[in-house]
């Protein structure tokens, strides 16, 4: 059916981004292909390698899933910050990826864990890594006629802790700046790897490797302000009505320092188990 409607069709899943766009007449596709009856796509499946989320899993499903939380706590940490509960009851995890809003949480999470999106068309399927999936603001690698059927979020290596932190004007608003961070400790609880993915400070989620700023340092005394300065130099924020580029850059540094310390503590607690 998607092949038939081609460029003139849009897939409707949760509709929490698409329907506002339609209501405001910013887009007027001739066809909507509603996938809500494809119940086989409504799953959050956790395997030792990671979490696979089907196209009809609502944010609220992903957030609540205890097995997914055990393997990848970042999913709940980030999904809990997506809009409001009322929106999370309907909006989908995979839909948020396809929408590719640079202010959205899930694209940054997928980037941070080196995840993938599974796409299917009448002619066959392909799997696109996160780094290639987010092309620009509200633009993903999805082609006309393709359906994103699932996303894979690989589990991070053992000894990894994560955190999600964002600043918005009101709870549930788009973040002025936000980040997910993953910190991996070695056997001596020293930093071996740190990476963060940022929202609202670039055309797509911005992935920054912070390892050089903190490598080898003890988990509870790492130079997170150095990591923050490193990140602030890598992001590409712009001025808009909500915040200046300079303020977003400032938030990048401050939030990196806070989230880094929190993720390192989180890593230490997961280490002990």
């Amino acid at each position, binding site marked *: 059916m998607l092949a038939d409607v081609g460029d003139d069709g849009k897939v*409707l899943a949760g509709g*929490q981004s698409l329907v*506002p766009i339609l209501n405001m007449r910013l887009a007027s596709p001739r066809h909507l292909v509603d996938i809500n009856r494809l119940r086989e796509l409504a799953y959050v499946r956790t395997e030792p390698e990671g979490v696979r989320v089907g196209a009809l899993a609502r944010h609220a499903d992903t957030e609540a899933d205890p097995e997914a939380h055990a393997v990848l706590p970042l999913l709940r940490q980030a999904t809990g910050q997506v*809009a409001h*509960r009322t929106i999370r009851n309907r909006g989908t995890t995979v839909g948020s990826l396809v929408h590719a809003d640079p202010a959205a949480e899930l694209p940054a999470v997928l980037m941070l864990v080196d995840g993938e999106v599974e796409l299917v068309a009448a002619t066959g399927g392909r799997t696109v890594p996160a780094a290639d999936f987010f092309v620009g603001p509200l633009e993903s690698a999805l082609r006309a006629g393709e359906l994103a059927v699932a996303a894979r979020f690989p589990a991070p290596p053992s000894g990894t802790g994560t955190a999600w932190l964002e600043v918005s004007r009101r709870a549930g608003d788009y973040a002025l700046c936000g980040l997910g961070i993953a910190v991996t400790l070695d056997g001596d609880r020293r930093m071996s790897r740190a990476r963060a993915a940022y929202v609202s400070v670039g055309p797509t989620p911005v992935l920054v490797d912070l390892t050089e700023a903190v490598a080898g340092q003890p988990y509870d005394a790492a130079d997170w302000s150095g990591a923050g300065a490193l990140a602030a130099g890598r992001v590409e924020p712009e001025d808009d009505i909500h915040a200046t580029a300079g303020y977003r850059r400032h938030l990048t540094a401050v939030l990196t320092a806070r989230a880094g310390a929190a993720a390192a503590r989180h890593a230490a607690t997961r280490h002990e188990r």
Partner: protein
Amino acid sequence: MNQLEPIHAVRLTVNGVPHEVEVPARRLLADCLRHDLGYTGTHVGCEHGVCGACTVLLDGAPVRSCLLFAVGVDGSEVTTVEGCRAADGGPGPVQRAFAECHGLQCGFCTPGFITTVTAFLREQPDPGAEEAREAIGGNLCRCTGYQNIVASVLRAAEIVRSEPGR
């Protein structure tokens, strides 16, 4: 309206009453409730999912009825503000709390608050002020300044907890 627009039959149970209604595919659930079925308690504010005035419960969970198509929720159970009244037909516990605490002024946003808070208290019957504030974060009110709405949520929780048969 385009006379050639295809019409679809949709079954909805609204506040326990079964309905069958014929609508074009483009009809939003909010408009279906108001125009086709006469449940005008559901208010349409921003029509893009920001204000929360149109919030209804879909199979028990709060959703924005302005972001759903009626054809897409065929077969569902919907609770509107009219369904939040007490068993005797008078105001329900959340509605009584809003009246007692002056949680409304013009009242336009109130149906969305009543439905949202009704669902919230089922999950969290004993919220703190901070939780109450977060629970109504997706609903805008231009009159009250929110203080009395937060008080109303806490009062509603007291009323619900004190009801016999819980």
